[in-house]
């Protein structure tokens, strides 16, 4: 029960926080088609987040809805991974991050379609199609930037090197019983498929698979980077300023 709540919240918060960061690009993308595309991706993620948060609230059974969970939880209660929470800076970084995240989500949701939990299975069935587009979009750009100009190749490699340490956290353990019950997917099981797909993209992009350090992580336990608090301040300030209001 609490394990399921935590599990669902982790998936929800990944999607919510990623959507929040994706929204930054709207009006800042390298070309207009990309403003449209990144808004689309953000909207898909936000939609996933809303369904999952509502489901988490119903698991908890204390009457909290999607907005209660998004706007009135404190930082230590958020369960998302570090990969998605850091500020947007550069388009290459955004595409590297999206490639890692969406490829992982793609394998995860493909497996979760078979979850014994019908809500999760339903969410996964819808998300798996959305996420396939996200992977394609990220791969499209990673290839173009990797195999574009000399400058773009260097920037894309640097972006990939910067994001790679955050990949491992996605494969961190979840509750054993949930996995045993066929409710959740053991993320470790996704590793090789995720890496194979990403490495194929990187090969086409003439990029080198990064080696080296792994970020500490801890998002699933509510231990975030120092950027998370600022993200939440922005996300929540208005709602918290009018706690009695509906919108």
């Amino acid at each position, binding site marked *: 029960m609490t394990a399921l709540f935590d599990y669902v919240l982790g998936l929800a918060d990944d999607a919510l926080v990623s959507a929040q960061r994706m929204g930054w690009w709207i009006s800042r993308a390298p070309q207009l088609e990309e403003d449209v595309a990144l*808004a689309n991706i953000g909207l898909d993620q936000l939609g996933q987040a809303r369904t999952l948060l509502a489901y988490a609230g119903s698991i908890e059974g204390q009457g909290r809805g999607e907005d209660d969970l998004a706007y009135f939880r404190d930082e230590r209660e958020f369960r998302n991974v570090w990969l998605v929470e850091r500020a947007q800076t550069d388009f290459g970084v955004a595409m590297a991050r999206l490639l890692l995240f969406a490829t992982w989500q793609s394998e995860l949701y493909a497996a979760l379609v078979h979850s014994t939990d019908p809500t999760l299975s339903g969410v996964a069935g819808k998300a798996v199609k959305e996420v396939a587009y996200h992977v394609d979009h990220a791969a499209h750009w990673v290839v173009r930037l990797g195999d574009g100009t000399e400058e773009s190749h260097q920037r894309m490699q640097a972006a990939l090197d910067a994001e790679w340490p955050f990949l491992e956290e996605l494969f961190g353990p979840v509750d054993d019983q949930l996995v045993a019950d066929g409710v959740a997917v053991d993320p470790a099981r996704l590793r090789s498929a995720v890496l194979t797909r990403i490495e194929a993209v990187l090969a086409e992009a003439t990029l080198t698979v990064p080696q080296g350090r792994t970020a500490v992580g801890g998002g699933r336990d509510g231990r975030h980077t120092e950027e998370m608090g600022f993200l939440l301040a922005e996300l929540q300030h208005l709602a918290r300023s009018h706690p009695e*209001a509906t*919108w």
Partner: protein
Amino acid sequence: DGDPESFRELLAGDGRVEPRDEMPEAYRKTLIRQIAQHAHSEIIGMQPEGNWISRAPSLRRKAILMAKVQDEAGHGLYLYAAAETLGVDRADLLDQLHSGRQKYSSIFNYPTLTWADVGAIGWLVDGAAIVNQVPLCRCSYGPYARAMIRVCKEESFHQRQGFEILHTLSHGTSAQKAMAQDAVDRYWWPSLMMFGPPDDDSPNSAQSMAWGIKRFSNDDLRQRFVDMTVPQAEALGLSLPDPEIRWNDERGHYDFGTVDFTELFEVIKGNGPCNEQRMSHRVRAHEDGAWVRDAANAYADKQAARAARTEVVA
């Protein structure tokens, strides 16, 4: 005048001019300028509302707002495409925006100070845009008219969303209602200015009307907007910041106060609250994206070269 016969016949028969039809150079230039300005307005217009995406007070509102700002980018795409049928290209039009040689609508030089401003922009600014744009769906230039049909459909959706935001606020807490009223107070007069200067001070209108680009005068459209909006304000339970608004039975229209166009001219000159910010945000996005566009072009060239090589070998 010396306009081509085929062009005069098309206009006379209320037909559509298509890209390959003959057309006077002045007509083409006027259209390019107008469509470009319209396209630029869509993309600059992403900023004031985009300013609230990260802070929208519910996830539902956040999703609606993201989708709305996305639609504005989409409108920009339709409109640049329509302009391109006239033999210009998007990159050149953007350069003209960035260098200040082409303009965008002055309404986007006002800041969004509160969440209610998102509602006010939807209700008033999109409302005014629709009044301006619905006649353009019958514009004499086919690609522009067809783009406007798509744009108008989405705009009317946005206008209803804006109304709904303000309705929720005006029926919410007292702080929310005050927020809504404040936003309407600030956006009302700038919205009236969106129809341009008064008719007797609008030198290019006559030619545009003769060409079937413009169908109604600035003042007629402004009156139509006021007539449409006053009852909606009543439905919202919000007042409009003009004590002279009252129904005139004789005219069959609402009377309203005199618009102070000196403010509009100041904003057009570059002295609005956000002119500098809007332009520098836009130019920065464009410059930051240059390496990405260059890479995409380089990749396309490589792919083309690879394809050519394969053909030669085959």
